[in-house]
């Protein structure tokens, strides 16, 4: 403000300052004006994490990776997401009186504006953007010693593992995807077209190979090395699953071979999801829920009727209305007598006089307002055995892998052949049918079925779904191939001004 300085000078020059006070004031005024600087306007927050100053050391990188695990918990712990994956399959059905969006995804009537899809898409891409941020900024994080260096390398590996897992979910739900590998910084130019499914898989495979080379086999459990983080074995298992999903059976088999013998089947099937039985001998990768830390599982409240919760003595939990998510009649009938997996997965309750089934797989008697202490097991040894069998095709060794899983299901020692329980080439059905059936029994309500069906020839998958819809709803529309992937959320298409295209059929 030059003019005012000049002004003050003029005033002085004119010499009518009769009083010293006047002069002092003018000096104060001039000093005040000149002392201000733009620093005064640069006010940084100190009550929150300013992004500009973050990632100054490897610990902060680990915090951001922890955030990815937390986001994953938020995705898979959400009923809406469960609805898109498990309820979409023939294992469960909606009660028909639920939120419109959840009914529509169950009956294959959803539109591209369905809120569940937008949420699922957004949450998964939020995780991807966070992973991208870690992967892109980690190389610049300075470290002081080899331990810290290891943290940096490992963080990139974990971020890539979680990014791969997220893209794997998305590509199975939506098909072609915008492949984002860099953090979003320019909001005015954020649109990106979709790339092919095979390109997405190429990224997933490359991420998993990077993860395999940078992740440890196990964690020692100390701070920053908590058991439950992604391991090399988890990455190899996921790689096997990804290859199998693409139909690359030899690659799947060889990836899964690394895991054989590294884990074991738990003696008791019900223990896999028992409260507090985290990271158990069968589990390769869990999503961790823990009520003590305000991160308990709440999803299962929707499965358990209030009356059951009350009779079991569960303090908080249980769903008072019509359960939004119920076992189908069809799935109740797939178990043979003596198969303990049935009683560990569902049960019946008295719904005003009629006995109806509910999902009983995830029950924590001690659950309180903070939720249940039950982890969602994403990758487990039984899956490895069944995937390996599927990858290797029909042979005696494959039947042995399947039978190990079956024997445990009937309470037997998995390693000892049992002529009553064991199946073989002589058992009825095709090999594929047998594997699929065993998978359905083993992983009931565990988010596997929908993606498993997608490995079948589309016509087979569709006939299964059509049969399911007809039996549950009677007049359900007939599905065609487009139904095997969801519509791209309309907001993605609208905001990108059509750069992002819709899947055919929607």
């Amino acid at each position: 403000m030059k003019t005012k300085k000049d002004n003050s000078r003029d005033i002085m020059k004119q010499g009518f300052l009769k009083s010293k006070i006047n002069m002092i004031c003018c000096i104060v005024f001039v000093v005040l004006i000149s002392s201000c600087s733009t620093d005064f306007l640069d006010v940084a927050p100190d009550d929150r994490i300013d992004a500009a100053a973050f990632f100054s050391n490897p610990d902060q990188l680990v915090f951001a990776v922890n955030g990815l695990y937390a986001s994953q918990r938020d995705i898979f712990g959400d009923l809406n997401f469960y609805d898109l994956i498990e309820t979409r399959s023939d294992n469960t059905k909606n009660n028909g009186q639920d939120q419109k969006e959840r009914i529509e995804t169950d009956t294959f009537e959803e539109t591209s504006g369905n809120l569940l899809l937008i949420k699922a898409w957004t949450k998964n891409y939020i995780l991807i953007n966070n992973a991208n941020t870690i992967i892109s900024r980690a190389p610049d994080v300075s470290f002081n010693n080899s331990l810290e260096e290891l943290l940096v390398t490992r963080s990139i590996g974990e971020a890539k593992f979680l990014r791969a897992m997220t893209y794997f979910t998305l590509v199975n739900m939506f098909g072609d995807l915008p492949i984002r590998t860099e953090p979003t910084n320019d909001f005015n130019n954020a649109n990106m077209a979709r790339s092919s499914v095979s390109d997405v898989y190429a990224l997933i495979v490359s991420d998993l190979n990077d993860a395999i080379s940078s992740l440890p086999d196990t964690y020692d459990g100390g701070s920053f090395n908590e058991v439950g983080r992604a391991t090399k074995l988890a990455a190899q298992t996921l790689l096997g699953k990804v290859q199998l999903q693409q139909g690359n059976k030899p690659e799947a088999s060889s990836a899964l071979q690394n895991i054989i013998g590294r884990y074991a089947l738990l003696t008791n099937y019900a223990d896999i999801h028992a409260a507090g039985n985290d990271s158990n001998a069968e589990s390769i990768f869990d999503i961790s829920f823990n009520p003590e830390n305000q991160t308990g599982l709440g999803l299962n409240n929707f499965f358990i009727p209030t009356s059951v919760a009350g009779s079991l003595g569960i303090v908080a939990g249980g769903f008072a209305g019509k359960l939004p998510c119920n076992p189908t009649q069809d799935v109740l009938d797939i178990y043979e007598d003596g198969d303990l997996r049935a009683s560990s997965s569902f049960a019946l309750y008295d719904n005003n006089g009629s006995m109806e089934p509910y999902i009983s797989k995830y029950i924590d008697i001690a659950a309180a307002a903070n939720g249940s202490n039950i982890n969602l097991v994403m990758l487990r040894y039984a899956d490895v055995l069944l995937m390996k069998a599927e990858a290797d095709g029909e042979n005696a060794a494959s039947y042995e892998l399947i039978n190990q899983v079956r024997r445990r299901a009937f309470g037997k020692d998995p390693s000892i052949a049992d002529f009553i329980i064991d199946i073989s080439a002589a058992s009825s059905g095709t090999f594929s049918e047998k594997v699929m059936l065993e998978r359905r029994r083993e992983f009931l309500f565990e988010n596997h079925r929908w993606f498993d069906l997608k490995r079948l020839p589309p016509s087979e998958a569709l006939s299964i779904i059509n049969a399911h819809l007809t039996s549950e709803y009677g007049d359900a529309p007939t599905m065609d191939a487009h139904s095997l992937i969801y519509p791209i959320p309309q907001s993605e298409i609208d905001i990108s001004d059509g750069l992002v295209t819709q899947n055919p059929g929607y």
Partner: protein
Amino acid sequence: MSNKKHILMKKQKLEYSPNINKLRYFVFTPILCMIFSFTFAQQAINGIVLDENSQPIPGVSILEKGTNNGVETDFDGNYSMDVSSMNSILVFSSIGFSSQEVAVENQTIISVTLQEDVSLLEEVVVTTGYGTKKRRDITGSIASINAGQIDSRPIASVEEALQGMVPGLNIAQRASSPGELGTISIRGLGSITAGTQPLWVIDGFPTDQRNAQSINPADIKSVDVLKDASSTAIYGSRGANGVIIITTKSGIKGRSNLNLTITNGSASAPKSARMTVLNAEEYVQFHKEKNGGIIPDFIANNWDGVTDTDWQDLIFRNGQYQNYAISASGGNEKVTYLLSGNYVDQQGIVMGEGQKKYSARAKVDFKASDRVTVGINLAPNITTVGRKSPGTDDSDWASLYAQSLMLAPILPIKRGNGTFSMNSDLPGSLPVGNPMETMQNWEFDQSFFSLLAGMNLNIEITEGLNFMSSFSANIGTSKSETYYLPTVGQTVPIAMSPVSSYNTGQNQSTSWLNENTINYKKVIGDHSFDLLGGYTVQHNIFESVSANTSELKVPGVKNVNIGNSDNLSGANSKNESSLISYLGRLNYSLKDKYLLTATVRSDGSSVFGENNRTQTFGSAALGWRFSEESFFQEQDLVTNGKLRISYGTTGSNAIPSFASRATFSTLEHAFGSNAVFGTTLGNPGNSSLTWETAKQLDIGLDFGLFNNRLNIVFDYFNNETTTLLLTKGIVPSSGYASFLTNIGSMRNKGLEITLNTEIVRTEDWKWYIGGNITTNDQEILDLGGEDEIQNFFGALRRVVGGELQQIRGPKVIGIARVGDDQSAQHLQTPGALIYEDVNDDGKISNFLGADGQLVGDTNVDLIYGFNTNVRYKNWELSALLNGQSGAWVYDFFLIQLGASFRQTNLSKEFWYDGRYIDEANPGNGITPAADGFDTASGPVSSFGSVKTDYWRIRNITLNYDIPKSFSDKLGLSSAKIFTSVENLHTFTDFVGGNPEARRASAGGPSLIGGSQIGSVTDGRELGLNSPPGLPLPRTWTLGINLNF
């Protein structure tokens, strides 16, 4: 020294030119003054004559009544004269002021303050921000009210004083519990997400509404409302929503005064203002009809046939109102002072609600020399607010009022076993809590402390050149506590916790301001200049901390460690901002006829992105006092006339301090039982974020007719706000849902008309009428390329071409009758609501679908106020009315909470009276049958979209001035008694409660699964009423005012 000599010297002084040795003058004047006061003889009298703003009035004629003995005041308002007797009466008179008579009565110093004649509005001094001006010289649009319009009313804060009095100013009392803030806007809401609040300036300190509310109304000298760019541009980046300047009273030299005002009264919720709900008989009848003519089991098994509880009667009460204000003021040549204290105890109309305010003010000006004045102004305030339930403002279900409306009348207060009954006693019913139980178990207390303190230094450098510097600080703290102890073993009421809980929170705001201005006034012939230049710096810090716990182990102890340690949680936040400004203003007038005002302010604000932190705002205005033109002098109808045109830009920086900065937020996670700390990308930030800019045009016309006994002011305004701060959608695959940016524009345009007339003016009778009307036409011009923004699940929308918020849903077109073909409708029974099938597809969609249409606009299109004042001798009766029309609200309470498909009680007027019963009793054709409401289309439809038009008898006051002869005997200089009623009655079709009530905003737009932009409002409060607002209290008071 003899008295005569003093007088001589003083007279001599008048003849000195300013160049004469000033030192003597400086030193002697005060000494002389002091000596005067000790040694004056009986027949000599002197003093000073001031106007209401404590400015000396030169040329006032002073006449000893009944004689020819008279003098005039000098340039500084001083006079001295000899009178013939100590019983004489002096008559003070001057053009533009009401004349005043004062009895000498042994006084030697008689200083008076002349009241400006109301009919001469043009002479009133208006505070313009960084200065004052006579109204005649104003080129902008500024409305003012003064102390006289506030004093006798039982109001606890300035907001209530302004409602209905100022054109263009809309004050809605959203929540009528004591201590709640009103929602204020000037000339419509000019922003979608950023603040719409005007800037409050208290004695020069720019601050917020909470501070303004804490001011003792008795301390207020004037309130000036700056509305157009010409007036507000001097406040630059904070001026876009208008500026309200509050000036407090000061001491007057030579005039000691002790003023005491006591007001006592009582407030209640008249039945006419409450929502009428069904009594037991009606309730049973309604449910019987709904159940096909058979009394349903839940009633048969639970009603004793007698119980009929009026739950509202149980929660409403007569709330006591007490207000004690005392002030002492006075001064001499060196020092003037004002000391005041105020205590207000205002009980709410609902049990347990109330506020207490304690405030004080010390304002002292010290004239260090003839050219240097130092002033200090300290105003501490403590306010405590309490209630016994979650507030009506933030709880749909659990406020006492909501509970009292919904709880079935067939339930007794207590069950046979002595426990409180609840709606859940009726099987299948919503567990609405019992207000008596809530009242017993819930405590909410809040206390505020604020201190506004300022020092200023004023130096007259030379004739007309003034330097002023001030340093002031505003320190405020607030503390709140919520304590809840549910009855053991009872069913958990809806919206209440099953376990006991305690929450305590405190926040502190510290703000300091330094302002330095130079003002130069000069008259050269026909040219008059008034130049202002200045530099200001302001810094604000707001910090808060809170802690919560639950499952209290030792009930009654308010300590967070008493709860279950697992449930202990805490939070804190800090917001900080800085503002640096340079300002300048030129006022120029030529021949007193042609006026020009040019204003510029350059602001640098820390809250914006680093690329966009400084901006310059400015305005220019022209005025033409055409009544001064010679061709106008020949008629005498129009005695005053002025045309004003102003145009300029102002800004709005009302966004959270750090919205422009990207942040990481925290996420909890645990591997097994090992808790770990996690982070995730939070606020996306935007380094280019900048101000909303308002471009404002104002064309005004002032008329004074019939010797200025009729004054009319017209103003046309057209305000366009551009670069709106809006969240813009971004492809979700980016990892964000939206970010805050500057896009879009909207406009408010309208007309303000103010009319004031003095119909009767005789010795004994005076009758004055005033009124104002403001229209506002609001339109969203652009939403950054979007056609609309949805909120509240799409039931509320902002649409280009529409008002700021629209309500969307299917439109009800009637009630189904027997024989109608209603195959498209969800309910096809006679008596059901029929909706319009807009797209003729044979189906009725809900509000999101094709049959959704605009069913209500939320902008207030018209506001008006009307006041009148009749004076006969010592009696004065005044009345104030105000009203509004054109705004709709979606009454979610009527439809969703107190709805016919539930077993809660419901609005008699909305659901019961005039309902369809059968073909013989088809009702009013508007209200459906008891079972005629369809929940598939019904959730949001035109049925729940209701008009909020009202007009209200806001205040009636009767004043009696105790005759001078009587008050003299009591040793009082004046005294008056007054009685007043506030909110006597509201005329409205709105169903129940307060038509101005709206839902509090639910906070910022939540990004799905991700971050949230804190405290950016989503505007939901514009369109949604749920729960219903409490009726405004009707307050009767009786008061007395004594001047010693």
